[in-house]
Every structure is written in structure tokens, then in C-alpha cells.
């Protein structure tokens, strides 16, 4: 699958902004089944200072600063990626049990059994800025993590339960809503569901990370797709030794395959915020986002 993604973010300020500093994580990275063909950022007004680097997790970050007075700011990210279909279907009844993975991750560093990958995955078992393990999360998780179950089977079950138990509701939560509220009211958006799943996995000692990206949405049969109707999306990934990281999308109850485009990942949203910034002046601002995911070739 060959996709072109156009992601436009526009800020309108009620007052002049004299200086602005931003970090954008809007350029996709290569990963197991994703090849980045091209990726550009267009910033308006002119960014006097602009630099791209890799962050701690290997994501592409663009730092830029605007030093002249402005009343609006637009950043347009255009990327093309090629996705390979994941050939093998996962067998949810085979492979590592979740306890075996937990025990492997829990081994202190001096054991030699851990591979570099497992060692690296251990950081994703720890609490992170937006996801801290609680007894409530552990309680919710236990139902899926029954003894000797295969790790993929258990995680798949967790995903299905979240999909079933929780209502998608963009008006109920905000960026600041704590996980406990989401769990209590069983409502939220993809970001909340991803955080929830990550919290559950960590509560049983597994390594889970947050994936930021896009999903291709299809219009109802017979209708044309509207430009800009798509949105940023998020899901989670779990570490399984030898197989590596396996993605799950609890919002859509599916294993991402050829419709999920990955921007990058981190411990939670705070590590991979698509766009953040500090401005001087501006007073109030309004913000407008449009995302268009276009399939160029099947």
C-alpha cells in the first residue's frame, strides 16, 4: 500500500506573537513493515531556525523557531509511505505465555539471558508521565491475563474488552483527563484507550508503548471521501521476545496491518506529542487541524 498523508495544523492568534518555539513529531519513521518514501514540513511564516534530529526513542523531531511578529502559523506535513502487508496471522494460542515474558523482563540486568531488545523493552514496563499503574488498572487487566495464557492471546482479549466496554466519546475527555476517570466512566478517545491498555499491560509486568500515527478511513459505500476528514490516531504496542513489538488498536478492535501509518512511539503521548510550542504574546488562539490520508496505490 502506498499512502500520501497531508496533515495541516493552523493556529490563529487574537494578538501578535513576537517569538515562537516549537517541536514537531510529524515525520514518519521507518519500521518493520513501513518504508518512508518522502516527508516534508512546510512552515508559514518563515522559520528563521529549523533543524531535524532524532529523539531518545529514535523518532524524527523538527525544532523550529519564528522570530518575526505574526498573527497566524501553519505547519503542513506531507509524507508518502509504503506499507507491506504482514503475511503471517498471529496464533493466539501458541508462543510465550504472558508470565514467561513478564519473568524475562523482570530479571535484573546481571542475568545474561536478556537480549539487547529485551533490555531495551524493560524501560516500557515502568510508569511514565501519563500512565502510572494503579490497583484499578491491575483489576481490569486480570480478567484477560489468566494463568498460562499466551501473551498475544491475552493482549488480544484485553483489546477486545476495551473495545466492547468503552464508548468512543470525543467530548468526554481532554488531554488532561486522568486515566482513572476514563476507567471509571468507560469513555474516551483512541488516546485514552491506548493509555488504558498500556497501563493494564504494565500492571501485569509487561512492556507496552504508545504509537502515534494515522489510519486510513473509508467513506460509506457510494460516497466520496472528504478531504481533511481524517485525524491523528494512536494505538499501543506490546513487546514479545523474538517476535518484537506487536501493535493493537483498541479503538477499532483490530491489529494494525496495512491501514495504520506510524509516525513514531514513546512511553505515552507526552513522549510523542505531534506538535507542541511556546509562544510569546498571542493572547488567545484558535486551532484548526486537517488530516487527509490518501491511498495512491493498492
Amino acid at each position, binding site marked *: 500500500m502506498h499512502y500520501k498523508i497531508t496533515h495541516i495544523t493552523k493556529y490563529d492568534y487574537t494578538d501578535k506573537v513576537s517569538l515562537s518555539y516549537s517541536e514537531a513529531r510529524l515525520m514518519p519513521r521507518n519500521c518493520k513493515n513501513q518504508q518512508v518514501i518522502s516527508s516534508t514540513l512546510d512552515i508559514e511564516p518563515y522559520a528563521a531556525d529549523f533543524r531535524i534530529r532524532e529523539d531518545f526513542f529514535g523518532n524524527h523531531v523538527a525544532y523550529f523557531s519564528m522570530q518575526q511578529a505574526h498573527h497566524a502559523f501553519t505547519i503542513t506535513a506531507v509524507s508518502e509511505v509504503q506499507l507491506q502487508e504482514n503475511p503471517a496471522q498471529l496464533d493466539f494460542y501458541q508462543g510465550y505465555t504472558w508470565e514467561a515474558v513478564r519473568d524475562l523482563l523482570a530479571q535484573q540486568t546481571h542475568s545474561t539471558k536478556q537480549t539487547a531488545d529485551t533490555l531495551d523493552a524493560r524501560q516500557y514496563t515502568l510508569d511514565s508521565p501519563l500512565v502510572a499503574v494503579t490497583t484499578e488498572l491491575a483489576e481490569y487487566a486480570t480478567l484477560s491475563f489468566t494463568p498460562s495464557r499466551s501473551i498475544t492471546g491475552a493482549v488480544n482479549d484485553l483489546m477486545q474488552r476495551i473495545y466492547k466496554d468503552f464508548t468512543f466519546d470525543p467530548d468526554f475527555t481532554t488531554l488532561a483527563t486522568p486515566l482513572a476517570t476514563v476507567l471509571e466512566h468507560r469513555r474516551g478517545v483512541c488516546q485514552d484507550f491506548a493509555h488504558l491498555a498500556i497501563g493494564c499491560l504494565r500492571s501485569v509486568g509487561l512492556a507496552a508503548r504508545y504509537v502515534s500515527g494515522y489510519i486510513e478511513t473509508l467513506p460509506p459505500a457510494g460516497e466520496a471521501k472528504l478531504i481533511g476528514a481524517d485525524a*491523528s490516531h494512536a494505538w499501543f504496542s506490546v513487546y514479545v521476545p523474538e517476535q518484537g513489538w506487536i501493535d493493537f488498536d483498541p479503538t477499532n478492535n483490530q491489529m494494525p496491518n496495512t491501514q495504520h501509518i506510524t509516525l513514531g512511539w514513546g512511553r505515552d503521548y507526552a513522549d510523542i506529542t505531534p*506538535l*507542541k510550542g511556546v509562544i*510569546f504574546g*498571542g493572547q488567545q488562539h484558535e486551532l484548526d487541524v486537517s488530516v487527509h490520508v490518501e491511498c495512491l496505490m493498492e
Partner: protein
Amino acid sequence: MATSNQYLQASKANTWLGNTAGYSAGASMLDEMLDQSGKVRPHWAYYIQALQKLGQGEVSLRQNEIHKLLRENGVTYNVYGDPDGSSRPWQLDSVPLLLANEEWRDIELGLLERAELLNLILTDIYGPRELIRQGLLPIEMLFNHSGFLRACDKVKIPGKHQLVLYAADLARGPDNRMWVIGDRTQAPSGAGYALENRLAMSRVFPNIFRDTQVQRLDGFFQSLRHGMQEIAPQNADAPRVVVLTPGPFNETFFEHAYLASHLGYPLVQGDDLTVRDGFVWLKSLNGLQRVDVIMRRMDDVFCDPLELRDDSRLGIPGLLEVARRGNVTIANPLGSGVLESPGLLPFLPRIAEYFLGKKLRLPSAATWWCGQPKELDYVLNNLHKLVIKHICRGAMTSVFGSQLSRQQITYWRDRIRANPAFFVGQEHEVFSTAPSLVDGHLEPRQSLMRCFMVAQESGYNLMPGSLTRSATQTGDVLVSSQLGAMSKDTWIVGGTSTQQTNVTANRHSELVGSSYSSTLSSRVAENLFWVGRYAERTEGSIRLLRTTVKKLYINPDNSNVHFQHSLHTILRSLTNITNTYPGFLGDSESDNATALLQTPDGELLSLMLDEEKIGSIANNQRSLVQAGYTVRNLWSSDTWRVMDEIKSHLEQSQQLTESTLWNIQEHMDRLITALSAFSGLIMESMTRGNGWLFLDIGRRLERALLLISLLRSCFSTAQASGTEQLLMESLLETSDNLICYREHYRNSIELPSFIELLMLDKNNPRSLAYQFNRIQEHVSKMPRKQSNAQLSVEERLILEACSLLDLTNLNDLIKTTKGHVRENLDQTLSRLYYLIATLSDSITATYFKHGQLQHSLNEVRPV
């Protein structure tokens, strides 16, 4: 065992040190001054002899002298939530801690080795992380620590060392060895206090200090300067170094200011700096100036709201990116706070083997990190005798197991078990005691040394001395400046003191004068401007108040209608010039003005003493002290002393109970004297740079505005000549002009000559014309962006004010039109007020550019 009795024994019965008795034994097994058999250790012998020779009375006097000196120098340590106000005077014990040079050499080797080791660890943590790969450092210890900043990964500073400044807390354990009980690697504080302690001690005990041959501290501060030069980015020719402080509310702000001025670096706050084009710049009066090295005294997470804590208003957005590119060096680098984790301690011996191939010379306090099963068990089972610490310093204060109830022990067991990786248990050591002077005799107190190191190309350099702190009570085990510990100077004795250049206390004032004029930040200029304005405002209003009080109490002539009228006019002017409406003017709704005019005492007292009343004298006084404190590194020690006096005045005035106008007269006199001394010092001893310029402009503007208000409210409407006579006399007295007037005019006071003296006389330093001329001179010298021939806005405004006065016809000015109104006078004064007030606004807009408010952009969440 070092008991007080031994102090007695050792000092022999015939001396004052032996004349006091009756205190209990110290808890420690070891004492710094006495050996096991109770004999004075050789390196203390000379000092103790000298102290005895001095005599008890004299030593007590000198202890007071030290206290006074520190207080006057404004040495403070701010304690959060302290009811005594934000700052508390620094406590210095007049008995130093003495260490023999031979032992110090050993300590030095151990500390330098530890500094090198921590440097290697820091380099690895933000680099290849071999320690984790090799299993020498558990990932949970490092990655759970809030000081491990992922954004700082792979950021390196130039030079051989990543850890530039390092401080270690040392104490002597029961085995007679020195133990490291804590590491400070973020923004270690205390070196400035150590220096200030040394200056005070050498001044108060000059002979003992000289004859004891104490090693000098100067060399360390030179190394510090060299160290800062060496780490500047490569392309910087003459690196500009600044000291970054969170501001005057920080607990060690005194030290930030003191070090900055001692080292000759500008002291800056976050909003004095800005990031542009990939570099950091200082917003100075002369435009943006590049900054190469930032010696930071701010915790790392506050330094950059873009990449670190987005709610920080103290930092500089974009700073970390500039550091990442190597265009500015921050010392210590952001992220270095992670080394302060006590969770690191149990792993140090193996890491030392790995990096250095040897055992550490100095042991650390025995520590168990609960992230490992065996260690966790040990800690849970021995909680009652351990100290519980969080791996992130500041997350909680240490908990002493021995002080916990059974219930609390259970609570802590559960809490640790829930998140074991966040906790360590540490051996509760009892450290050696050292003698402290308490109520005129020596008492053993547990003590702790903080030792300071700085990296240079050639290696680390250790300050030959330390900041020693001792517990407040005999038997106390907790030593913390936050808890009010007493500090001590530390004397390394017996070595051949290396010859080093003599840095005297005066040296920095000269440095400040030269380096500051070119890099005066807008914020500092603004503070100086307001120091000028508040000083003048306080002085102006208190003078008028004093005149009023005299009128009320000395020889009041209540039967005289002129007296009554003039008094009421002055009372109303007081409300006018202090902007404390409705006051004596009353408001339209309730006519309480008449009552107030009859019994003005209450309102006058609140004008004088009510600190919370905007415009009151106490309120202005507070603003003056605050503005002065923010730029305290610019004051000479004499000026600071006077500033401190103004501050104590304020404190005393707040404690006056049952004050009456009568008994606060002396208080007012003293405050006026202090304010005059302040003005005098500013005139006589402050370098005529930009700083002085802004301060004096502030002062002149304020004096002009006060005088205009006063003249307007007293003479815009003509009154009976008897009333005006009394008014003129009062105003002349207020402005210190009565004698001058009598000398000039030698007759009864008349309005034309009065107005001439106060408005038009260019030679009278209290006249309007005089203020305008000074302002005009200053404005022409202020830094300007464009050097074109056109007059600046400020120049135009003051030119108009001067011309208006020059062209004034005295007789026209004071003649009455429309009945009793002196329309010309009123209009002229009103125009002048407008011009001067606009000038002030214009200076504010041009020079004190307030950056716009900082906001974070709203983020878009994925759905």
C-alpha cells in the same frame, strides 16, 4: 568519648573554657577536637590556646560581631514558610572546624577520584549506557529517576568533563574514616557561603586566623573562573559567562548574587535571556549580547519550557536545543541531577572497578536500593534502624526509622513494597562531633562538611576548606540549612599554604563596575529605576508626614483659622501625593472627610505603618527593599548596610504596638536619616554607568512628580494670605528649604519668591527646574538604538518641560483668574505632570521591554 566533660578537662580548670559545666554527653563516639583519651588533638592545640588567651568575654563579643557583620552584609538563607519573612540571617559559629593537612590530602585524593568517577557515569548515562548493558546499573534505578532527562540524551559539553561543578557531603563515621553521605551534582550550592564565612572569620579573628596558617580559598574561585572559560563553545573568543538564578525567592539567592559579583559575571533570570538563530542572548540595554556559558543555579527541569517542564516560567524556551548544538554550554549540563540519586550509591564500588580498575578511597554511606529482591527484604526487615530515602531528592524528606511508631513502620513497609525501585534504606550513622560555641561555652555537635570541586582541563580542583554545618541541638542528627543548622568555617591547618594571589572583598566591586555597564540587562535597569523612584517616594511622603505631625503636636494653634486651613490643606495633599484615596479628601457618597480632618491620627498612622495599604510609607518601603534585593549584587557593602537598615526599620515598624503619632516621630527621623544616607551613597560611591543613570532618572522623575502634586494641591486655589503663609512655611520645611529661603530672601515668606525657589531656581537641588535639568542630561546619555540627528521621544518630552519653565512669567503664573483659581499655575503644573509622567512611560516602553507573556500552544490530541 567526646563529652562536654572532656571539653572541660581538656581546657583545664583555670581557663574560661573550663568554667562551665553541667551539660550531658554528646551522642557520638568521636570528636574532632579531642582524641579518645580526651586530649586535644595536635592540630587544634594552637587554636584552642589562642581562644583561651582571648578570654570568654572577648569571644562572645566577637561572636556578636560576626552576627552583625553577616546581617549587615545581607547574608541570608531563605527558608520557605518561615514566619520571620522570606529570608533569615545566615548563622555562623565563631568556632571553625579544624582539619590537619595530612588527613586533608587523603580526603582530597578520595574526592577527586569520586568526581572523576561521577563524571564517567554521567558521560555514560547520557551516552552509550554501557553501565546498563553490562548490568552494572539497573535500568529501573536510572529510568525511574525524575532527574534522568531523556531530552538531554547525547548532549555533550566541550572539554574533558561533563560534570563541571561537584559538591560532596562528608562526615566522619564511628570507624574514624570520612564517609560520603551525599552528592550534589545539579547546581551545588554553598561555595559562596563558604567564602563569605571565611571573610567574616578572617575579619573578626584576624590574628588567630593568620597565626593558625589556614589554607586560602582564593585559588578555588580562580579555578572556577578558568573552568568556566574552558568549557565555552569553541568559536567564542572572549566568552561571556552569566549566572542564571530562579530569582530572589530562591532559598540561596544571596549566594547567587554574591558569587556572580565575586566572579564578575552578570546575574540573570530566565527572561533576561532569549534564544534566537540558534544562540542564547542577553537582553541588555545596548541590545542583544551573545551568551556562551551559563552557570546555572536553577534546577534543570525549569530551564526550558519547550522540552522540559512546560509550566516553568523561569526558563528560556529553546535553551536545550542551543545546548544540543553546542552553541552554549550549561554548567552543570541539564540532566546532571540524576547523579544525586542515593540509589546510585550501592552500585558505585563495582562501577569504580569497571571504570577505574580500583576500589574507591572514600566509602559512601551504606545503602540498599529496594529495586532488588534481597535488598528490599533487608530494608523491610530493618526499617526501624535505617533512614528511608526516595531516589529523587526533593520527592520527600528523609524518614528516620528509629523515630517511627509501629503503625508508621507498617505504613512505610507498604509504601516501599508498592514501588520498591523508588526507595533506598541507608545506614543511620552517628557522626563525629565538633565543638560549637553555645552561650559562651563549647558544646559537641554533630557536623557535616560540604566540599566543592570544579573541573578544569587538568582535572578537578578541590576547595581547600568547606562549608561545615552542625546540628542545632546536642544529640541532633539531622543537619540541614533548611532546618536552621549553624554553619562553620573549615580550616585546613598545618600545610604549607600555597602562595596565591590575594583576592580581597573589594575586588569584585571594581569588576562589577566595568563588566556590568556594558551588559546591564533591561530587568536590572528597570529595578534600579524603581529603586530610585521608591526611595524618593518614601522619602518625599515621609517628609510631608513629619511636617504634618509636627504641626499637629508642636505648638498647635487650634484657635487660629489659618492654622486650621493650612493643616487641612496639607492633610489633603498627603492623600493626593500618596494616592491613598479617598483619605482626607473623602468621597462623594459619605462625607467622612470632615471627621477625618478633625481627628486625623488614625489615617496618618495607617499612612505611615500599614504595609498592605498601597501608597503608604511602609508599603513603599517594602517595594524599595524588594527592588533593592533583586539587584543586591550591584550594591557596595556600605550601601547594602543602609538598605538593610531600611529593611529593619520596616520590620520594627510592623512590630510597634500602641503606636501614636507622637511616639513614631523618632522612628520617622531615623528612617529619613537612613534614606538620606542611601541617596548619599548612591551619589558618592556608585559608578556613573547606565545603572546609576537609570536609578537617578527614577529619583528625579519621582521628586518632580511629588513636587508638582504638592504645589498643585496647595496653591492652585488661592487661600487667605495667612493660610498660605503657613502652608509655604510647611512646604519649605518639608523640602528642606526653609533655611535656604531665609538666607536668600531674609524676609517673611512671599508667594512669588516661594514659587521661584521651588519651581524655577536652577541651583536649588529640590526645585523643579533642577530635576528637569538633571533628567535632560541623563536622557541624552541613555543608550540609543539609532544615532540619528532627530531627538528621541524622551528628549522631546523633557525639552518641552524645560522650555515651559524657562518661558514662564512668574507674575502671570501666580495671578488669580476666575475668583480664587490660579488658572495659569494649575495649567502649567498639570502640563508638566503630564510631560513627566509620559516620559516615565516612554522610558519604560523603550528600555524595559517586557517580553510578551509566555504561553504554551494548545495541543491537538489524536482521536
